[in-house]
Protein backbone atom coordinates (compact mmCIF):
# COMPACT_ATOMS: atom_id res chain seq x y z
CA UNK A 1 0.00 0.00 0.00
CA UNK A 2 1.25 3.48 -0.89
CA UNK A 3 2.15 5.91 1.90
CA UNK A 4 -1.05 7.59 2.99
CA UNK A 5 -1.45 11.36 2.55
CA UNK A 6 -2.96 11.60 5.99
CA UNK A 7 -2.60 9.03 8.72
CA UNK A 8 -4.55 9.62 11.90
CA UNK A 9 -3.75 7.22 14.70
CA UNK A 10 -6.02 6.80 17.74
CA UNK A 11 -6.80 10.48 18.02
CA UNK A 12 -8.55 11.59 21.18
CA UNK A 13 -9.92 14.98 22.18
CA UNK A 14 -11.83 15.79 25.35
CA UNK A 15 -13.71 18.94 26.34
CA UNK A 16 -14.10 18.72 30.11
CA UNK A 17 -15.97 15.47 30.71
CA UNK A 18 -17.03 15.04 27.08
CA UNK A 19 -14.86 12.97 24.78
CA UNK A 20 -15.58 14.61 21.43
CA UNK A 21 -13.20 12.40 19.44
CA UNK A 22 -12.52 9.01 20.99
CA UNK A 23 -9.60 7.09 19.55
CA UNK A 24 -10.33 7.64 15.85
CA UNK A 25 -7.91 6.25 13.24
CA UNK A 26 -8.17 7.14 9.56
CA UNK A 27 -5.92 6.69 6.52
CA UNK A 28 -6.39 8.81 3.43
CA UNK A 29 -4.67 7.99 0.15
CA UNK A 30 -3.77 10.39 -2.62
CA UNK A 31 -6.24 11.23 -5.36
CA UNK A 32 -9.39 10.09 -3.61
CA UNK A 33 -12.50 11.69 -2.20
CA UNK A 34 -13.47 10.68 1.32
CA UNK A 35 -16.65 11.44 3.23
CA UNK A 36 -17.01 11.91 6.95
CA UNK A 37 -20.55 11.52 8.24
CA UNK A 38 -22.31 11.08 11.53
CA UNK A 39 -25.15 12.54 13.58
CA UNK A 40 -24.82 16.03 15.07
CA UNK A 41 -22.26 16.12 17.84
CA UNK A 42 -20.51 12.98 16.67
CA UNK A 43 -17.14 14.75 16.48
CA UNK A 44 -16.73 15.52 12.78
CA UNK A 45 -15.85 19.19 13.09
CA UNK A 46 -13.69 18.52 16.17
CA UNK A 47 -11.76 15.99 14.12
CA UNK A 48 -11.26 18.63 11.40
CA UNK A 49 -10.11 21.10 14.03
CA UNK A 50 -7.61 18.61 15.44
CA UNK A 51 -6.19 17.89 11.98
CA UNK A 52 -5.79 21.59 11.19
CA UNK A 53 -4.42 22.52 14.63
CA UNK A 54 -7.34 24.75 15.64
CA UNK A 55 -7.84 22.38 18.57
CA UNK A 56 -4.95 20.61 20.23
CA UNK A 57 -5.47 16.83 20.41
CA UNK A 58 -5.10 15.14 23.81
CA UNK A 59 -3.78 11.81 22.55
CA UNK A 60 -2.84 10.18 19.28
CA UNK A 61 -0.91 11.20 16.21
CA UNK A 62 -1.65 13.03 13.00
CA UNK A 63 0.87 12.31 10.25
CA UNK A 64 0.63 14.31 7.03
CA UNK A 65 2.87 13.40 4.10
CA UNK A 66 5.04 11.26 6.38
CA UNK A 67 5.51 14.08 8.90
CA UNK A 68 3.88 14.55 12.29
CA UNK A 69 1.74 17.67 12.34
CA UNK A 70 -0.13 17.30 15.64
CA UNK A 71 1.14 19.99 17.98
CA UNK A 72 1.93 22.44 15.15
CA UNK A 73 0.20 25.80 14.90
CA UNK A 74 -2.70 26.06 12.39
CA UNK A 75 -0.70 28.32 10.05
CA UNK A 76 2.21 25.88 9.99
CA UNK A 77 -0.14 23.03 9.09
CA UNK A 78 -1.73 25.18 6.38
CA UNK A 79 1.70 25.99 4.96
CA UNK A 80 2.51 22.28 4.82
CA UNK A 81 -0.40 21.79 2.44
CA UNK A 82 -3.68 21.23 4.26
CA UNK A 83 -6.44 23.57 3.14
CA UNK A 84 -9.88 23.85 4.66
CA UNK A 85 -13.22 25.57 4.52
CA UNK A 86 -15.45 26.19 7.51
CA UNK A 87 -18.94 25.04 8.42
CA UNK A 88 -19.90 28.66 9.01
CA UNK A 89 -18.43 30.83 6.25
CA UNK A 90 -15.29 32.67 7.29
CA UNK A 91 -14.28 35.00 4.47
CA UNK A 92 -12.62 38.32 5.34
CA UNK A 93 -15.68 40.59 4.93
CA UNK A 94 -13.93 43.96 4.60
CA UNK A 95 -11.39 42.73 2.09
CA UNK A 96 -12.35 42.58 -1.57
CA UNK A 97 -12.85 39.19 -3.20
CA UNK A 98 -9.47 39.55 -4.91
CA UNK A 99 -7.74 40.61 -1.68
CA UNK A 100 -9.24 37.59 0.10
CA UNK A 101 -7.18 35.45 -2.25
CA UNK A 102 -4.06 37.63 -2.49
CA UNK A 103 -3.39 37.65 1.27
CA UNK A 104 -3.12 33.90 1.37
CA UNK A 105 0.08 33.40 -0.64
CA UNK A 106 3.59 34.71 -0.38
CA UNK A 107 4.19 34.27 -4.12
CA UNK A 108 5.32 37.29 -6.10
CA UNK A 109 2.42 39.68 -6.52
CA UNK A 110 2.13 39.25 -10.29
CA UNK A 111 2.01 35.47 -9.97
CA UNK A 112 -0.45 35.67 -7.08
CA UNK A 113 -2.69 38.01 -9.04
CA UNK A 114 -2.68 35.72 -12.05
CA UNK A 115 -3.57 32.70 -9.93
CA UNK A 116 -6.26 34.64 -8.06
CA UNK A 117 -7.82 35.85 -11.32
CA UNK A 118 -7.86 32.32 -12.67
CA UNK A 119 -9.51 30.96 -9.54
CA UNK A 120 -12.10 33.75 -9.50
CA UNK A 121 -12.95 32.99 -13.13
CA UNK A 122 -13.15 29.30 -12.24
CA UNK A 123 -16.03 30.03 -9.83
CA UNK A 124 -17.43 32.88 -12.01
CA UNK A 125 -16.66 35.58 -9.45
CA UNK A 126 -14.26 37.53 -11.68
CA UNK A 127 -16.87 40.25 -12.24
CA UNK A 128 -17.00 40.85 -8.48
CA UNK A 129 -13.28 40.84 -7.78
CA UNK A 130 -13.24 44.35 -6.28
CA UNK A 131 -16.42 43.94 -4.25
CA UNK A 132 -16.11 43.55 -0.48
CA UNK A 133 -16.46 39.86 0.37
CA UNK A 134 -19.05 40.79 3.00
CA UNK A 135 -21.31 42.17 0.26
CA UNK A 136 -21.39 38.91 -1.71
CA UNK A 137 -24.33 36.51 -1.43
CA UNK A 138 -24.07 33.48 0.82
CA UNK A 139 -23.37 31.16 -2.10
CA UNK A 140 -20.78 33.51 -3.57
CA UNK A 141 -19.01 33.75 -0.22
CA UNK A 142 -18.97 29.97 -0.06
CA UNK A 143 -17.33 29.79 -3.49
CA UNK A 144 -14.89 32.51 -2.50
CA UNK A 145 -13.91 30.62 0.63
CA UNK A 146 -13.46 27.50 -1.52
CA UNK A 147 -11.06 29.15 -3.97
CA UNK A 148 -9.26 31.08 -1.23
CA UNK A 149 -8.34 27.71 0.24
CA UNK A 150 -6.98 26.68 -3.20
CA UNK A 151 -4.59 29.66 -3.41
CA UNK A 152 -1.87 27.70 -1.61
CA UNK A 153 -2.44 24.69 -3.83
CA UNK A 154 -2.99 22.30 -0.88
CA UNK A 155 -2.41 18.56 -1.21
CA UNK A 156 -5.17 17.71 1.26
CA UNK A 157 -8.48 19.54 1.19
CA UNK A 158 -10.93 19.48 4.09
CA UNK A 159 -14.44 20.70 3.32
CA UNK A 160 -16.88 21.25 6.17
CA UNK A 161 -20.42 20.93 4.76
CA UNK A 162 -19.77 22.31 1.28
CA UNK A 163 -23.37 21.70 0.18
CA UNK A 164 -25.15 23.43 3.08
CA UNK A 165 -27.19 26.42 1.91
CA UNK A 166 -26.02 26.20 -1.69
CA UNK A 167 -28.51 25.97 -4.56
CA UNK A 168 -28.48 23.06 -7.01
CA UNK A 169 -26.68 24.79 -9.89
CA UNK A 170 -23.98 26.16 -7.64
CA UNK A 171 -23.68 22.83 -5.88
CA UNK A 172 -23.17 20.97 -9.15
CA UNK A 173 -20.39 23.42 -10.09
CA UNK A 174 -18.79 22.92 -6.70
CA UNK A 175 -18.96 19.14 -6.89
CA UNK A 176 -17.55 19.20 -10.42
CA UNK A 177 -14.68 21.34 -9.11
CA UNK A 178 -14.02 18.82 -6.35
CA UNK A 179 -13.88 15.99 -8.89
CA UNK A 180 -11.44 17.98 -11.03
CA UNK A 181 -9.20 18.51 -8.01
CA UNK A 182 -9.31 14.79 -7.29
CA UNK A 183 -8.33 14.06 -10.89
CA UNK A 184 -5.30 16.32 -10.40
CA UNK A 185 -4.16 14.13 -7.53
CA UNK A 186 -5.59 16.07 -4.59
CA UNK A 187 -7.06 14.26 -1.62
CA UNK A 188 -10.39 15.48 -0.34
CA UNK A 189 -12.11 14.80 2.96
CA UNK A 190 -15.55 16.27 3.36
CA UNK A 191 -18.08 16.49 6.14
CA UNK A 192 -21.57 16.52 4.70
CA UNK A 193 -25.12 15.96 5.86
CA UNK A 194 -26.59 15.77 2.35
CA UNK A 195 -26.47 12.02 1.74
CA UNK A 196 -27.01 12.39 -2.01
CA UNK A 197 -23.82 14.42 -2.19
CA UNK A 198 -21.88 11.98 -0.05
CA UNK A 199 -23.08 8.91 -1.92
CA UNK A 200 -22.56 10.47 -5.33
CA UNK A 201 -19.13 11.92 -4.72
CA UNK A 202 -17.20 9.93 -2.14
CA UNK A 203 -15.26 6.76 -2.78
CA UNK A 204 -14.88 5.88 0.88
CA UNK A 205 -17.03 7.01 3.78
CA UNK A 206 -16.15 7.12 7.47
CA UNK A 207 -18.97 7.17 9.99
CA UNK A 208 -18.56 8.74 13.42
CA UNK A 209 -20.91 8.35 16.35
CA UNK A 210 -20.24 9.72 19.85
CA UNK A 211 -16.66 10.43 18.82
CA UNK A 212 -15.93 6.89 17.67
CA UNK A 213 -15.49 5.58 14.17
CA UNK A 214 -18.25 2.99 13.80
CA UNK A 215 -17.93 2.17 10.12
CA UNK A 216 -15.75 2.69 7.07
CA UNK A 217 -16.28 1.63 3.49
CA UNK A 218 -17.80 2.29 0.09
CA UNK A 219 -21.02 4.39 0.19
CA UNK A 220 -23.17 1.41 -0.86
CA UNK A 221 -21.83 -0.74 1.95
CA UNK A 222 -22.18 1.99 4.57
CA UNK A 223 -25.84 2.56 3.73
CA UNK A 224 -26.76 -0.95 4.79
CA UNK A 225 -24.48 -1.16 7.84
CA UNK A 226 -26.44 -2.04 10.96
CA UNK A 227 -24.50 0.24 13.27
CA UNK A 228 -24.80 3.20 10.94
CA UNK A 229 -28.55 2.82 10.64
CA UNK A 230 -28.76 2.50 14.39
CA UNK A 231 -26.68 5.64 14.94
CA UNK A 232 -28.89 7.68 12.65
CA UNK A 233 -32.32 6.32 13.44
CA UNK A 234 -31.94 4.68 16.85
CA UNK A 235 -32.67 1.09 17.62
Amino acid at each position, binding site marked *: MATPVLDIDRLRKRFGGVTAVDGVSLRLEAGRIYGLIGPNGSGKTTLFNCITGVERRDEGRVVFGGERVDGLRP*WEIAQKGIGRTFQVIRV*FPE*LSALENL*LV*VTRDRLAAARERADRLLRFVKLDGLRDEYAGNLSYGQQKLLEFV*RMLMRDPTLILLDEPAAGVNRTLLNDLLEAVRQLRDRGKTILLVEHDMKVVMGLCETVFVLDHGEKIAEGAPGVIQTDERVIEAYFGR
Partner: protein
Amino acid sequence: MSQRVALAAPVAVALALAAYPVVASGYEVRATLQIFMWIVLAGSWNLISGLTGYVSFGHVAFFGAGAYAGAILISKAGWPWLAAALVGGGAAVLLALVIGYPCLRLKGPYFAIAMLGLNEVLRALVSYFEGLTGGGNGLSLPTLDATVPIYYVMGLTAVAVTVLTYLIITSRFGLRLMTIREDEVAAEAMGIDTARHKLYAFLLSAAGPGIAGALTARDQGYIEPISVFPLATTITMIVMVLFGGKGTVWGPVLGAVVLFVAQEVVWARYPYVHPLLFGALIVAVVLLMPRGVLGILQVRYRLPRTI
Protein backbone atom coordinates in the same frame (compact mmCIF):
# COMPACT_ATOMS: atom_id res chain seq x y z
CA MET B 1 -4.94 63.92 -12.43
CA SER B 2 -6.61 63.05 -9.13
CA GLN B 3 -3.46 61.16 -8.22
CA ARG B 4 -1.42 64.30 -8.76
CA VAL B 5 -3.76 66.25 -6.51
CA ALA B 6 -3.59 63.49 -3.93
CA LEU B 7 0.16 63.86 -3.88
CA ALA B 8 0.39 67.63 -4.35
CA ALA B 9 -2.10 68.59 -1.63
CA PRO B 10 -0.25 66.95 1.30
CA VAL B 11 3.09 68.27 -0.01
CA ALA B 12 1.67 71.80 -0.18
CA VAL B 13 0.26 71.50 3.34
CA ALA B 14 3.59 70.17 4.60
CA LEU B 15 5.49 73.09 3.01
CA ALA B 16 3.06 75.60 4.50
CA LEU B 17 3.47 74.00 7.93
CA ALA B 18 7.24 74.06 7.54
CA ALA B 19 7.13 77.83 6.95
CA TYR B 20 4.48 78.40 9.64
CA PRO B 21 6.76 79.01 12.67
CA VAL B 22 8.25 82.03 10.88
CA VAL B 23 4.95 83.89 10.96
CA ALA B 24 3.06 82.21 13.81
CA SER B 25 2.84 83.26 17.44
CA GLY B 26 4.30 81.14 20.22
CA TYR B 27 0.83 79.87 21.11
CA GLU B 28 0.09 78.91 17.50
CA VAL B 29 3.35 76.98 17.16
CA ARG B 30 2.64 75.16 20.40
CA ALA B 31 -0.92 74.32 19.35
CA THR B 32 0.26 72.99 15.99
CA LEU B 33 2.95 70.99 17.75
CA GLN B 34 0.19 69.43 19.84
CA ILE B 35 -1.76 68.55 16.70
CA PHE B 36 1.37 66.83 15.33
CA MET B 37 1.64 64.89 18.57
CA TRP B 38 -1.98 63.75 18.33
CA ILE B 39 -1.45 62.68 14.72
CA VAL B 40 1.49 60.55 15.88
CA LEU B 41 -0.52 59.01 18.73
CA ALA B 42 -3.75 58.44 16.79
CA GLY B 43 -1.90 57.18 13.70
CA SER B 44 0.10 54.72 15.80
CA TRP B 45 -2.96 53.44 17.66
CA ASN B 46 -4.62 52.95 14.27
CA LEU B 47 -1.89 50.48 13.24
CA ILE B 48 -2.49 47.96 16.01
CA SER B 49 -6.13 48.68 16.78
CA GLY B 50 -7.74 50.13 13.65
CA LEU B 51 -5.90 47.97 11.16
CA THR B 52 -5.08 44.81 13.09
CA GLY B 53 -8.15 44.90 15.36
CA TYR B 54 -6.33 44.59 18.70
CA VAL B 55 -7.87 47.42 20.68
CA SER B 56 -5.30 48.85 23.07
CA PHE B 57 -6.60 50.75 26.10
CA GLY B 58 -3.15 51.48 27.41
CA HIS B 59 -1.34 52.94 24.44
CA VAL B 60 -0.29 55.99 26.41
CA ALA B 61 2.07 53.59 28.21
CA PHE B 62 4.44 53.87 25.23
CA PHE B 63 4.19 57.65 25.32
CA GLY B 64 5.05 57.61 29.03
CA ALA B 65 7.88 55.11 28.58
CA GLY B 66 9.39 57.29 25.85
CA ALA B 67 8.93 60.40 27.98
CA TYR B 68 10.74 58.90 30.95
CA ALA B 69 13.49 57.28 28.87
CA GLY B 70 14.11 60.58 27.08
CA ALA B 71 13.88 62.75 30.19
CA ILE B 72 16.27 60.54 32.16
CA LEU B 73 18.83 60.57 29.35
CA ILE B 74 18.59 64.34 29.01
CA SER B 75 18.59 65.26 32.70
CA LYS B 76 20.85 62.55 34.17
CA ALA B 77 23.17 61.71 31.27
CA GLY B 78 23.20 65.05 29.51
CA TRP B 79 22.14 63.64 26.14
CA PRO B 80 21.06 65.97 23.32
CA TRP B 81 17.25 65.89 23.07
CA LEU B 82 17.12 64.59 19.49
CA ALA B 83 19.14 61.49 20.31
CA ALA B 84 17.15 61.05 23.52
CA ALA B 85 13.90 61.19 21.50
CA LEU B 86 15.08 58.43 19.18
CA VAL B 87 16.08 56.29 22.15
CA GLY B 88 12.68 57.08 23.69
CA GLY B 89 11.10 55.53 20.59
CA GLY B 90 13.44 52.56 20.91
CA ALA B 91 12.56 52.12 24.59
CA ALA B 92 8.86 52.05 23.73
CA VAL B 93 9.47 49.42 21.02
CA LEU B 94 11.47 47.35 23.50
CA LEU B 95 8.63 47.59 26.01
CA ALA B 96 6.19 46.51 23.28
CA LEU B 97 8.41 43.52 22.52
CA VAL B 98 8.46 42.42 26.17
CA ILE B 99 4.73 42.77 26.77
CA GLY B 100 3.65 41.85 23.24
CA TYR B 101 4.53 38.17 23.62
CA PRO B 102 2.18 37.49 26.54
CA CYS B 103 -0.48 40.14 25.85
CA LEU B 104 -1.08 39.56 22.15
CA ARG B 105 -2.28 36.02 22.92
CA LEU B 106 -5.26 37.62 24.60
CA LYS B 107 -8.32 38.40 22.55
CA GLY B 108 -10.81 41.25 22.46
CA PRO B 109 -11.60 42.83 25.82
CA TYR B 110 -8.89 40.81 27.58
CA PHE B 111 -6.17 42.45 25.51
CA ALA B 112 -7.72 45.87 26.04
CA ILE B 113 -7.80 45.38 29.82
CA ALA B 114 -4.27 43.93 29.93
CA MET B 115 -2.98 47.06 28.21
CA LEU B 116 -4.90 49.23 30.64
CA GLY B 117 -3.26 47.30 33.48
CA LEU B 118 0.18 47.68 31.93
CA ASN B 119 -0.20 51.43 31.93
CA GLU B 120 -1.14 51.46 35.62
CA VAL B 121 1.82 49.18 36.43
CA LEU B 122 4.22 51.48 34.62
CA ARG B 123 2.85 54.50 36.39
CA ALA B 124 3.34 52.75 39.73
CA LEU B 125 6.86 51.66 38.75
CA VAL B 126 8.09 55.14 37.86
CA SER B 127 6.62 56.42 41.12
CA TYR B 128 8.48 53.72 43.01
CA PHE B 129 11.96 54.12 41.51
CA GLU B 130 12.46 57.61 42.90
CA GLY B 131 16.23 57.67 42.49
CA LEU B 132 15.96 57.47 38.74
CA THR B 133 12.59 59.03 38.00
CA GLY B 134 12.06 61.47 40.83
CA GLY B 135 9.00 59.44 41.85
CA GLY B 136 5.84 61.41 42.52
CA ASN B 137 7.86 64.64 42.65
CA GLY B 138 8.49 64.37 38.95
CA LEU B 139 11.56 64.99 36.89
CA SER B 140 12.77 68.42 35.81
CA LEU B 141 14.82 68.88 32.67
CA PRO B 142 17.46 71.60 32.20
CA THR B 143 15.93 74.78 30.84
CA LEU B 144 16.00 75.00 27.07
CA ASP B 145 13.76 76.72 24.56
CA ALA B 146 13.59 74.28 21.70
CA THR B 147 9.91 74.49 20.81
CA VAL B 148 10.52 75.35 17.15
CA PRO B 149 13.02 72.54 16.43
CA ILE B 150 10.78 70.15 18.38
CA TYR B 151 7.89 71.38 16.22
CA TYR B 152 9.82 70.21 13.15
CA VAL B 153 10.83 66.85 14.59
CA MET B 154 7.31 66.15 15.83
CA GLY B 155 5.99 67.18 12.41
CA LEU B 156 8.40 64.79 10.70
CA THR B 157 7.34 62.02 13.07
CA ALA B 158 3.70 62.66 12.17
CA VAL B 159 4.59 62.49 8.47
CA ALA B 160 6.57 59.30 9.07
CA VAL B 161 3.67 57.60 10.88
CA THR B 162 1.25 58.61 8.12
CA VAL B 163 3.57 57.48 5.31
CA LEU B 164 4.21 54.22 7.18
CA THR B 165 0.45 53.68 7.46
CA TYR B 166 0.08 54.29 3.72
CA LEU B 167 2.86 51.83 2.90
CA ILE B 168 1.37 49.19 5.20
CA ILE B 169 -2.19 49.60 3.96
CA THR B 170 -1.13 49.29 0.32
CA SER B 171 0.95 46.17 0.95
CA ARG B 172 0.06 42.52 1.41
CA PHE B 173 1.57 42.79 4.89
CA GLY B 174 -1.20 45.29 5.63
CA LEU B 175 -3.83 43.01 4.13
CA ARG B 176 -2.60 40.22 6.37
CA LEU B 177 -2.91 42.50 9.40
CA MET B 178 -6.50 43.17 8.31
CA THR B 179 -7.27 39.44 8.09
CA ILE B 180 -6.38 39.26 11.80
CA ARG B 181 -8.97 41.94 12.49
CA GLU B 182 -11.53 40.30 10.20
CA ASP B 183 -11.19 36.68 11.32
CA GLU B 184 -8.08 35.50 13.12
CA VAL B 185 -9.01 31.79 13.06
CA ALA B 186 -9.54 31.87 9.30
CA ALA B 187 -6.29 33.81 8.83
CA GLU B 188 -4.36 31.08 10.67
CA ALA B 189 -6.12 28.34 8.73
CA MET B 190 -4.97 30.08 5.52
CA GLY B 191 -1.34 29.83 6.65
CA ILE B 192 -0.87 33.35 8.00
CA ASP B 193 1.46 33.48 11.00
CA THR B 194 -0.81 35.77 12.99
CA ALA B 195 1.35 35.88 16.14
CA ARG B 196 4.32 37.30 14.24
CA HIS B 197 2.19 39.76 12.27
CA LYS B 198 0.46 41.05 15.40
CA LEU B 199 3.81 41.54 17.10
CA TYR B 200 5.21 43.52 14.15
CA ALA B 201 2.14 45.75 14.11
CA PHE B 202 2.43 46.24 17.86
CA LEU B 203 6.14 47.17 17.66
CA LEU B 204 5.44 49.64 14.85
CA SER B 205 2.60 51.16 16.85
CA ALA B 206 4.87 51.76 19.86
CA ALA B 207 7.70 53.67 18.13
CA GLY B 208 5.78 56.88 17.35
CA PRO B 209 4.30 57.35 20.84
CA GLY B 210 7.75 56.73 22.37
CA ILE B 211 9.34 59.47 20.25
CA ALA B 212 6.40 61.81 20.86
CA GLY B 213 6.67 61.20 24.62
CA ALA B 214 10.36 62.10 24.73
CA LEU B 215 9.80 65.20 22.58
CA THR B 216 6.91 66.33 24.77
CA ALA B 217 8.99 65.79 27.90
CA ARG B 218 11.74 67.99 26.42
CA ASP B 219 9.31 70.66 25.32
CA GLN B 220 7.49 70.87 28.65
CA GLY B 221 10.66 70.62 30.72
CA TYR B 222 8.97 68.71 33.52
CA ILE B 223 7.21 65.35 33.73
CA GLU B 224 5.51 63.41 36.49
CA PRO B 225 3.75 60.03 36.50
CA ILE B 226 0.23 61.45 36.21
CA SER B 227 1.17 63.80 33.38
CA VAL B 228 2.61 61.18 31.00
CA PHE B 229 0.48 58.10 31.79
CA PRO B 230 -3.07 59.49 31.79
CA LEU B 231 -5.85 57.19 30.61
CA ALA B 232 -7.51 60.26 29.08
CA THR B 233 -4.73 60.41 26.47
CA THR B 234 -5.43 56.86 25.35
CA ILE B 235 -9.13 57.60 25.17
CA THR B 236 -8.51 60.75 23.15
CA MET B 237 -6.40 58.91 20.56
CA ILE B 238 -9.05 56.21 20.30
CA VAL B 239 -11.81 58.77 19.77
CA MET B 240 -9.74 60.62 17.17
CA VAL B 241 -9.27 57.43 15.14
CA LEU B 242 -12.89 56.34 15.50
CA PHE B 243 -14.06 59.81 14.47
CA GLY B 244 -11.73 60.06 11.46
CA GLY B 245 -12.08 56.45 10.31
CA LYS B 246 -10.20 53.44 11.63
CA GLY B 247 -8.10 51.42 9.25
CA THR B 248 -7.68 54.35 6.81
CA VAL B 249 -4.57 56.46 6.13
CA TRP B 250 -6.05 59.91 6.69
CA GLY B 251 -8.66 59.07 9.32
CA PRO B 252 -6.32 59.54 12.31
CA VAL B 253 -5.02 62.81 10.79
CA LEU B 254 -8.54 64.14 10.27
CA GLY B 255 -9.61 63.03 13.74
CA ALA B 256 -6.57 64.58 15.39
CA VAL B 257 -7.01 67.94 13.63
CA VAL B 258 -10.77 68.25 14.02
CA LEU B 259 -10.99 67.07 17.62
CA PHE B 260 -7.98 69.06 18.78
CA VAL B 261 -9.25 72.27 17.23
CA ALA B 262 -12.76 71.66 18.54
CA GLN B 263 -11.36 70.91 21.97
CA GLU B 264 -9.30 74.11 22.02
CA VAL B 265 -12.26 76.24 20.98
CA VAL B 266 -14.71 74.62 23.39
CA TRP B 267 -12.13 74.41 26.17
CA ALA B 268 -11.41 78.11 25.96
CA ARG B 269 -15.05 79.18 25.96
CA TYR B 270 -16.85 76.64 28.11
CA PRO B 271 -14.32 74.99 30.45
CA TYR B 272 -17.02 73.31 32.55
CA VAL B 273 -19.09 71.91 29.70
CA HIS B 274 -16.02 70.61 27.90
CA PRO B 275 -15.81 67.10 29.46
CA LEU B 276 -19.55 66.71 28.97
CA LEU B 277 -19.34 67.61 25.29
CA PHE B 278 -16.36 65.34 24.79
CA GLY B 279 -18.24 62.45 26.41
CA ALA B 280 -21.30 63.13 24.29
CA LEU B 281 -19.12 63.15 21.18
CA ILE B 282 -17.72 59.71 22.04
CA VAL B 283 -21.22 58.30 22.40
CA ALA B 284 -22.37 59.97 19.18
CA VAL B 285 -19.43 58.66 17.16
CA VAL B 286 -19.82 55.11 18.41
CA LEU B 287 -23.60 55.08 17.92
CA LEU B 288 -24.03 57.03 14.72
CA MET B 289 -20.88 56.43 12.72
CA PRO B 290 -18.78 53.58 14.06
CA ARG B 291 -16.76 53.68 10.84
CA GLY B 292 -15.89 57.34 11.25
CA VAL B 293 -16.10 60.11 8.66
CA LEU B 294 -13.70 58.60 6.13
CA GLY B 295 -15.00 55.08 6.78
CA ILE B 296 -18.49 56.16 5.78
CA LEU B 297 -17.22 57.94 2.65
CA GLN B 298 -15.08 54.92 1.83
CA VAL B 299 -18.02 52.52 1.93
CA ARG B 300 -20.54 54.85 0.29
CA TYR B 301 -18.36 55.99 -2.60
CA ARG B 302 -16.30 52.81 -2.84
CA LEU B 303 -13.06 54.65 -2.16
CA PRO B 304 -9.80 52.83 -1.51
CA ARG B 305 -8.50 52.47 2.05
CA THR B 306 -5.72 54.90 1.19
CA ILE B 307 -8.04 57.85 1.86
